[in-house]
């Protein structure tokens, strides 16, 4: 994210760097630092999840049983596949195969859109089941107040994650456009790598969200 604009105008070395190696090292490190801030951003939500799961154990179990297990599982697979195509896009540009890079980026975008569509279907299901927190929320089982909080955290966490997927689609599209314009080559492809890092991070967050939200109460429901 950070460096796509950084390199937009220029193929060659930016004036303030001594050489390409310094430039690409700085760019990848900058991206990692940015991802660390993302870890801490999601960390705040994981903290809320953890504290309340500890306090309202039963409600968390209950809430989890109302997740759409199959959509969650399929979405996990979708994101893993998109990570594969993303890393293959990076590999292709490293080898200078620009056309293959474009294809792989396009497939990644398709997977990302599929993820969001499935997420939308899932949200719609929750809406119909009166599981949206707020005045329309209705829950018949034990401890409805804290089950509602489970749903608050569910929507906040998956909502922020979906926002990141959306931003990811924008970034991958930008990279795709730049690649079509011939911006990248074997020698210069930092932006592709950085968007790749960002995309894998989005996958990484989901890898934890999946068990924490979908699996903790599943055996009771299943």
């Amino acid at each position, binding site marked *: 994210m950070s460096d796509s604009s950084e390199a937009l105008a220029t193929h060659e070395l930016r004036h303030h760097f001594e050489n390409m190696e310094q430039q690409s090292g700085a760019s990848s490190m900058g991206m990692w630092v940015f991802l660390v801030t993302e870890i801490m951003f999601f960390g705040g939500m994981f903290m809320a999840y953890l504290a309340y799961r500890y306090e*309202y*154990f*039963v*409600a968390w179990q209950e809430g989890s049983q109302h997740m759409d297990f199959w959509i969650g599982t399929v979405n996990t697979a979708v994101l893993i596949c998109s990570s594969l195509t993303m890393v293959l896009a990076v590999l292709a540009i490293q080898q200078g195969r620009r056309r293959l890079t474009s294809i792989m980026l396009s497939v990644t975008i398709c997977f990302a859109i599929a993820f969001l569509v499935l997420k939308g279907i899932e949200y719609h299901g929750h809406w119909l089941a009166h599981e949206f927190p707020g005045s329309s929320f209705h829950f018949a089982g*034990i*401890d*409805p*107040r*804290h089950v509602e909080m489970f749903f608050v955290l569910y929507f906040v966490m998956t909502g922020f994650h979906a926002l990141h997927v959306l931003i990811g689609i924008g970034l991958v599209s930008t990279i795709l456009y730049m690649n079509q314009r011939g911006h990248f080559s074997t020698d210069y492809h930092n932006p592709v790598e950085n968007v790749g890092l960002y995309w894998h991070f989005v996958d990484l967050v989901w890898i934890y969200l999946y068990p924490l939200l979908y699996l903790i109460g599943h055996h009771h429901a299943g």
Partner: protein
Amino acid sequence: MFPNFPIWPVRAAVSASNLDALFIFLLLVTGTVTIMIFILVTVFALRYRHDLVDKATPILGSTALETTWSLVPFGIFLIFFVWGAVLYFQERTPPRNAMEIYVVAKQWMWKLQHVDGQREINELHVPVDRDVKLIMTSQDVIHSFFVPAFRLKQDVLPGRYTTLWFHAIRPGTYHLFCAEYCGTQHSGMIGSIVVMNPVDYEAWLSGGGGEGSLASTGQKLFQQLGCGSCHRSDTQGRGPNLVGVFGKPVLLEDGRTVTADENYVRESILNPGAKIAAGFKNIMPSFQGVVNEEQLLSLVAYIKSLQGSQPSGLVSNRPAVPNAPAQSKAK
């Protein structure tokens, strides 16, 4: 002295004397070090003024000195830490048999309720030389119960009980402040603590028009709400028998154990499904919105007063017939 220029707050409780000792110790130690640094900076600045010295003497540093001025402060800090922690632990551990007073804070007043039924607003009368324990909650935002003369402060939280205890040693009238910013009239949420001689206190108690003890108010409410139809005083009820439960560990349905303290009783009334006692079903309705904070406190006081002759130890309260048929509506 100077009535409008105090430099030391009044010492009116045991906690105040304890704390003052630590405070003076801290003041002496930190004061000495601070003055030492001031003197060193001043002396160096004067002694090594640029026109008195031809050339600075290069010194790189000294590991021995660095170690010393890391380890010595560390040792001193350990004393501060342990002393402070011990005081804190004492302040947070109310003695048994303390006289209990219930506090409900709201924007922007203090409501105080004695076990015998007297209610007060923004003023609390307590006897000298008695352990007094406050059980506090808020019905809106976070407040903080602060009595400078006792050197005590505790935030008062909505949705939970916090406690505070003191042992007053000097009769008099002392400030009660709200110390946690709580909205527009925060600075108006002040009151006073009146510490009285036992004789005066008895006189005050008999003068106040209490409407029966807090526990008896709670008992009435308990009957009004129909709690007794399930929480019977034998083992046949659909809910646990509450006699002698208070203060004991309770085995929960999911295998965990909690202590039946004020917060557990409160949670079980407002949010019965959260921690169900082992052997019982989740059939009790929530009383969220049905009882207010003061009524809740009276229920807590009532349940606390039910000190029956149950054997101590882990109270399981399991009914004689496990999972008694109980699907009809509770209440």
